[in-house]
């Protein structure tokens, strides 16, 4: 067990950015001054937005942006699933595969060649270290692990995120479709 939370009353939230553009996280930041209000109720225990480097053992709400494209994404999604009570897919990449999944029409080897050889003028070479292996097909998060709530949108608006989190914090089940849709 990890150390007890500083403020046990606060809802512990973790976010991660898999294969996506970070736009959903940016949209989260678009909450602007509402972030302050949110900070009274939640504690962000792990996220690209904060400094923590490891995902705590127990998290109340996990939020994943991005599709699962490489082995690292998969491992992270699985870890989130194990440690988060509720898991949210945030944005079209996490929900549908979206733009990252467009590469599924091509052979993986061709994709890698295009990225690391064809379009590179200086020392074209395949990365061998520190780059997680790409998976054959890009899949949405729920194709790998169970997901409890889906927030489509590219990106979902700050309004949507505010509404969904508000409902969750109030103990209700939000209906994201009232505010957002695929491609919104």
């Amino acid at each position, binding site marked *: 067990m990890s150390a007890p939370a500083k403020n046990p009353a606060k809802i512990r939230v973790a976010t991660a950015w898999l294969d996506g553009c970070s736009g959903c996280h940016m949209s989260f930041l678009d909450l602007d001054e509402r972030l302050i209000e949110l900070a009274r109720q939640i504690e962000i225990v792990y996220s690209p937005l904060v400094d923590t480097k490891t995902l705590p053992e127990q998290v109340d709400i996990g939020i994943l942006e991005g599709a699962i494209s490489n082995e690292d994404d998969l491992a992270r999604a699985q870890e989130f699933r194990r440690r988060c009570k509720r898991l949210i*897919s945030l944005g*079209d990449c996490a*929900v*549908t*595969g*979206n*733009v990252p*999944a*467009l590469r*599924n*029409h*091509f052979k993986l080897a061709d994709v890698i060649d295009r990225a690391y050889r064809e379009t590179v003028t200086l020392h074209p070479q395949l990365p061998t270290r520190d780059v997680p292996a790409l998976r054959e*097909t890009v*899949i*949405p998060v*729920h*194709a790998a692990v169970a*997901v409890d709530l*889906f*927030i*489509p949108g*590219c990106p979902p608006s700050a309004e949507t995120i505010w509404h969904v989190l508000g409902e969750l914090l109030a103990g209700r089940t939000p*209906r*994201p*479709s009232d505010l*957002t*849709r*695929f*491609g919104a």
Partner: protein
Amino acid sequence: MPIPAPPTNVRVVTFQIDGRDYSAREDETIIEVARENGIPIPSLCYLEGLSTWGACRLCLVELAGSPRLVAACATQVAEGLQIYTDTPRLQRYRRTILELLFAERNHVCSVCVSNGHCELQALAQRYGLDHVRVPYRHVAYEVDASHEMFRVDHNRCILCTRCVRVCDEVEGAHTWDVMGRGSDCRVITDMNRPWGASDTCTSCGKCVQVCPTGALVKQGTSVGEMTKDLHFLPYITRRRHNR
């Protein structure tokens, strides 16, 4: 060869939709009556002014006393019918049908020129479809941009055949048809040649306007810029009728 059978005398019938009383001519279909009265029955293949196709199955409704669902576009109203258009069972089926469509081809809304003006996308939102449970097929389809004014993106086609019907029935060119079978079906122009090379296409653009998704669009449009305008269809239908 044969001449169509002559129409029979019509009469007016009364019936219920979602618990409220309505009356209509008995040769009207359920979907026609429902839309006249502002009851939104969803559909993707049905379009007023075109022949009935009955294929998207989104307009299925329940009839009291019958376990079998009927297509509102293909079923005429009848005396005493009790029609239910939005039961939980229908909502569930509609959601699943939409899921199947999204999984079938590559409807990537975020990068679609029809984003925000797409009937498929709007229905998904209306039915609370926030994710697709079945695996996406990820089959690559071609984009044919050979026509100087229009473009067909088969990735976004749902095979509703509105383009085929409007081209045949309203424009009279029959440039479009469907080739293949099952999930290999694809809309084609002429002998499955590039649209731009078509001998029969009149470039009237009716197919583009009736297409419910971003499959048929104008050249030069970017994400979210393609809006469709259907007003010509009832207009032409009335003109034809008056003649």
